């Protein structure tokens, strides 16, 4: 018995050793054939003697690859895109949505697939600032302009990034400091995203940075909210309320969480302490609560206008055929949409300017 099991062990060890060796060898092989990235460099490589595409003739396929295809802003975004193209039945353009389900690997697979299917333009919410750089470069080499939206990729090769999250948190802290009339030693909690999403979703970081640089506020703690869902925001906030007697400011990275925090505060009977809740994005329930004065404010994103203008830009890019790759661009031109600090005082104005109606 003993010898047999020894033999087995030796066999397994040998096998493992073989595998390790094989891997080592393949790792040592030369490094030229990277995953498509790496190269690039300056210098115009494209042919710009004539328009790249005739936009009056269809079909032209545009892909939208969001982090997750759920969420309240999705329909607004789609409306913005289609309105810029002349309605959903324009006969030329179609916009297809691909849900990357918060999964970087899946997002890369989708992007690769879009290149194979020869889409004409891609709008991307990058799941990771570094992991998608190569595939964006691939797409641009293939002549597909890629615009990153909300969540940007760091790579120097992307054509355009539209980014608002870090600034939103920073500006929110500034606004609260200037207008909410809180004491200099106010106690702050931040309900942030889970660590996995922190590299791309950086409102919490922005808020924290402003807090550390410009205020003497006391940051009690930062708690991650799984799925940034309302019920999780509710339970975490009620625990924090039990833990601390004195909370002055609650910064949340999402309006769902803000509403959850509000519910927790109300069911703990502490709605009269004047706790400032601040959200992000502008979901209907939160907007209604701001109107009623129960939530202090939110960083309103005008998703419709962002989407509309993104699509205008894409039409231009498709016609000219400009991508960062064929222009040899080494940086990413940023179009930054600032979020609008929205509080009870200006909510009607902001909403009517954005064309959003409650109910």
């Amino acid at each position, binding site marked *: 018995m003993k010898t047999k099991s020894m033999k087995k062990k030796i066999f397994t060890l040998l096998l493992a050793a073989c595998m390790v060796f094989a891997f080592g060898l393949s790792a040592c092989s030369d490094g030229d054939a990277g995953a498509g990235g790496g190269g690039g460099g300056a210098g115009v490589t494209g042919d710009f003697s004539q328009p790249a595409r005739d936009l009056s003739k269809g079909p032209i396929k545009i892909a939208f690859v969001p982090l997750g295809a759920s969420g309240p802003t*999705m329909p607004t975004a789609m409306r913005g895109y289609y309105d810029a193209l002349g309605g959903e039945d324009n006969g030329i353009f179609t916009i297809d949505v691909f849900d990357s389900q918060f999964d970087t690997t899946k997002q890369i697979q989708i992007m690769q697939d879009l290149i194979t299917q020869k889409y004409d333009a891609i709008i991307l919410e990058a799941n990771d600032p570094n992991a998608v750089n190569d595939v964006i470069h691939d797409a641009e080499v293939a002549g597909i302009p890629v615009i990153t939206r909300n969540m940007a990729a760091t790579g120097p090769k992307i054509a355009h990034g539209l980014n608002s999250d870090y600034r939103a948190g920073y500006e929110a802290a500034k606004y609260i400091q200037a207008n909410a009339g809180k004491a200099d030693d106010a106690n702050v909690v931040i309900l942030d995203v889970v*660590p996995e999403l922190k590299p791309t979703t950086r409102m919490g970081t922005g808020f924290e940075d402003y807090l550390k640089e410009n205020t003497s506020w006391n940051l009690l703690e930062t*708690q991650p909210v799984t799925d940034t869902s309302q*019920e999780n925001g509710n*339970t975490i906030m009620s625990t924090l*309320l039990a833990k601390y007697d004195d909370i002055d400011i609650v910064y949340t990275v999402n309006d769902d969480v803000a509403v959850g925090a509000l*519910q927790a505060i109300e069911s703990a009977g502490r709605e009269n302490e004047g706790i400032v809740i601040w959200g992000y994005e502008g979901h*209907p*329930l939160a907007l209604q609560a701001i109107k009623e004065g129960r939530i202090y404010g939110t960083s309103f994103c005008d998703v419709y206008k962002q989407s509309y203008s993104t699509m205008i830009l894409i039409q231009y890019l498709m016609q000219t055929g400009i991508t960062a790759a064929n222009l040899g661009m080494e940086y990413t031109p940023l179009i930054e949409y600032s979020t609008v600090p929205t509080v009870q005082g200006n909510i009607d104005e902001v909403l009517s300017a954005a064309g959003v109606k409650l109910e």
Partner: protein
Amino acid sequence: MNAEKGKFLKAAGSIWGQRVTILVAVIVVMAIVQPRFFSSGNMLSILLAIAFYGVIASGMLFVVLIGGIDLAVGSEAALGGTIFTMYVLAHDMSAGTFFTAFLLAILVAILVGLLHGFFDAYLGMPSFVVTLATQYALYGLTQYITKMNYLPVLNASGLFYQLGNGKLFGIPSPVIWFVILAVIAAFVLKKTPYGRRIYAVGGNPHAAELVGVSSKFHKMTAYIICAVTASIAGMLLVSMNMVSSYKMAAGYEGPVLMALVIGAVNLMGGEGSMGGVFFGALLVGIINNMLILIGIDTDYKEFVQGCIIILAVAINVYTSRKSQGLVDQKRRRMPWLNRPKRGAPDG
């Protein structure tokens, strides 16, 4: 004297003795580290946090007892909640609409449960993969019927509002739902012939068939019960949040299974009790709460959670093996003895 001492030790070594020991240990630790743990607000927040998982777990218990598993509970909850919301949004806030919507969601849940039961009982397909597949399909369906919209209910009132936001003696409605459903489940499993047959089918379906217990019928009903409780959880969720989105309740199957396993439910079937599930859910809730109260660096929350769960289950397994006198034996010779007795509900 000696006999009494033995009795006491036996009680301490029994599964409930062990559970009480764990709870007391946790409470003592919390009393030292963070006395605010005992505030009524915190207690309610723990209960509210586990209420949704608990409602689902009380139904999932049936499925696990008959030897199946339902990984689609999250999507069942999303589907139920979405149908409920859509119906109410399309009509009004009256009581009549509320009940119709409620029944409609339950009806759809019954259909889903029937489907699962059919696949498992009649076609013999493994429930793990079947429910993993229906999880995709049901999320897809929910997305499809909502056209990927987010459905806020801005003028929530009446029963729709009360379902998730109502309070009885200061206790939030979802907690009450959890307790009621848990009591019903415990009663059905312990006191009714149907419940006993569920254990019999889970313990040994062939033997159960031989003594005239239809394993098919019991499997079907177990899946239906699970889908219905999941759907109720979904409705409670939309009513509390006053909004419905297709991704709500995503990933709920993980915590639910954790609660079941910590409550000493055997995932192979035939073993476990509602009391255990209640304890398991409570422990999961307390752990999450503790992590915030103690102030663990939040990045490592999941890591600590995983460790505590392994620890809890390990203690559970160790004591149950010890009570069977297996710990000091040469385990390698007779591993099949490690399996606890089947068929008998504990507690």
